[in-house]
């Protein structure tokens, strides 16, 4: 009951709406169950039950023999060059892209907070990539970054040697840029919402005290932003695991080695339908995500607890 009103409570501290109604609550336990059935049925059928089957598959030798092999599938997967490469590439990408996907939108949101002319036009332009299908702009990216493309023509005209943007380690940079192009808008909106929620009197009081913009940010705004930063980090992390989409559209099934992502590995393993590898890979990725997200939650609790209450 308390949890239901956590959001209301924050805005409305009168406490008026926190009266308990035991009799209704008890009846609600059963009477709303039918509303949930379609969703639960589909959820169980398409996600939860097959996930346990995947877990089961990851511990047997093959779907016909069904012999228990303990961690053999995991061991062979961890010794698989392609899988480890894709895992390494995905993690490298996340480590580069996630901090940028937090910092850049945060900065842009702070700039947008200034009362500048044409604010809403800037905002719309910055958010628009969010709705544009990556597939639609991929041609322009190819024209710009191709070996014979715009950037190399420019580099050569000022006497710098051309770079193979898709088939060298620079390709990571290209994908990071595309990732930031796509994700900055969403994250910026989240930061803008958080900034808008800082009480005006807090800001005004600190202005009267003569606090400069930089100190105001670190002393005051950062406290209010901590939970958004946490959420944006999680979100960007999840999205960084989805960057396969951009890489695939840009360079196809067989990209430069440094761009071979987890989803590439999964796609290629689906071609041979090696259920054991697929299952073990899905479970490992699930564990990695869970550990990282749980870690972020713990961090957020430790850092954020002093501010929230």
């Amino acid at each position, binding site marked *: 009951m308390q*949890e239901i009103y*956590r*959001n209301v409570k924050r805005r409305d501290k009168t406490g008026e709406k926190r009266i308990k109604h035991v009799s209704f*609550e008890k009846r609600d336990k059963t*009477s*709303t169950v039918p*509303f*949930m059935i*379609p*969703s*639960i049925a589909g*959820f169980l059928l*398409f*996600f939860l039950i*097959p*996930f346990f*089957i*995947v877990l089961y598959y990851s511990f047997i030798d093959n779907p016909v023999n069904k012999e228990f092999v303990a961690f053999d599938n995991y061991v062979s997967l961890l010794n698989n060059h392609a899988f480890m490469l894709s895992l390494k590439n995905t993690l490298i990408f996340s480590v580069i892209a996630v901090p940028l996907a937090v910092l850049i939108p945060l900065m*842009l949101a702070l*700039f*947008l907070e200034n*009362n*500048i002319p*044409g604010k809403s036009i800037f905002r*719309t332009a*910055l*958010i*628009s990539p969010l*709705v544009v*299908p*990556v*597939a*639609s*702009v*991929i*041609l*322009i990216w*190819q024209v*710009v970054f*191709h070996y*014979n*493309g715009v950037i190399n*023509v420019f580099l050569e005209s000022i006497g710098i040697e051309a770079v193979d943007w898709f088939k060298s380690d620079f390709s990571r940079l290209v994908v990071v840029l595309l990732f930031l*192009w796509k994700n900055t*808008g969403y994250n910026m909106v989240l930061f803008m*919402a958080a900034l808008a929620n800082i009480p005006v009197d807090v800001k005004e009081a600190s202005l009267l005290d003569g606090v400069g913009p930089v100190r105001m940010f670190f002393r005051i705004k950062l406290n209010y932003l901590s939970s958004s930063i946490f959420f944006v980090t*999680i979100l960007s992390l999840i999205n960084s*695991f*989805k960057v*396969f*989409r951009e890489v*695939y*559209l840009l360079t196809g099934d067989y990209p430069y080695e440094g761009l071979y992502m987890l*989803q590439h590995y*999964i*796609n290629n393993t689906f071609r041979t339908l090696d259920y054991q590898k697929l299952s073990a890979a*899905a479970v490992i990725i699930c564990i990695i*995500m869970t550990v990282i*997200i749980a870690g972020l*939650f713990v961090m957020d609790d430790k850092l954020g607890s002093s501010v929230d209450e």
Partner: protein
Amino acid sequence: MNKAGIRNKDKIKRIISVAISMIILGYTALMFIMPVVLTVSNSFMTKSEITANYGKVFSDSGTSAVSSYIADKVNLKIIPDKVSFGQYVTVLIKSPQYLLKFWNSVIYVVPIVIFQIAISLGASYSFARYRGPFRNTLFFVYIALMLMPYQVTLVPNYLVADWMNILNTRWSIILPGIFSPFAVFILTKTMQRIPSSIVEAAKIDGANEWQIFSKVFVPMSRNAIYSVALLLFIDYWNMVEQPLIMLQNNEDMHPLSVFLSKINAGEIGLAFAVATIYMVLPLLLFLYSEDRILEGIASSSAIKG
């Protein structure tokens, strides 16, 4: 220094900070919309102009039969030499395969958006009205699943689709999409904010659960429903991962979002027109209802209670 002097100094400071903000924002905003602007403007070029401008980039990957003029350097231009609707005419009249792929996208996205929301409304109602230990756990599992990348969820999805014999059919994309938990999450968060005093008032008036659901909770969540619908539309309109796996042996059913990347070099002029057609719908929806979308995004951040 007197007070007026301080005020002047503050004014100058303020002007400088606004100017810097504007330069940085303006520059970033320009870079951000450039790919869109260029795609649209290039779609109005004639086929020979596209070939001349970008032949250097795209010719090495496919047909060598291009005998027309190719500039020796790539030439990215915003304004076409001659505005032409030729590419659109070709796409819309002479090359039906693009329209078929476009239609595929529609066929996936519309039912997923409608049914995911319909089914999620019921679940969210139930989650919002009562949160005991069982439903709390279940809700937590929904969120956990929502946070998992495709690498985790596609394997289970594939197993079920295989078992149901719907691989390489439209259903293998639509059904898992319908039961994806994103809408449940947002709508539950929205419905939890509806005060229980309203429920009680409705009950005193003799409303049953269905009436409370359909006459109180659904109308009161209207804004959130609209935002979620837009976000879902954008997400599935852009899908790539699911068709690559579920429709491995049936490329005819691929949505345009996958097919666009496979347009071969000989048809590069068409590609700009197709790309433009594909992004017009989400862009117009966005411009028409930007505030709603922003609201939806902001409410998605309520992941921690």
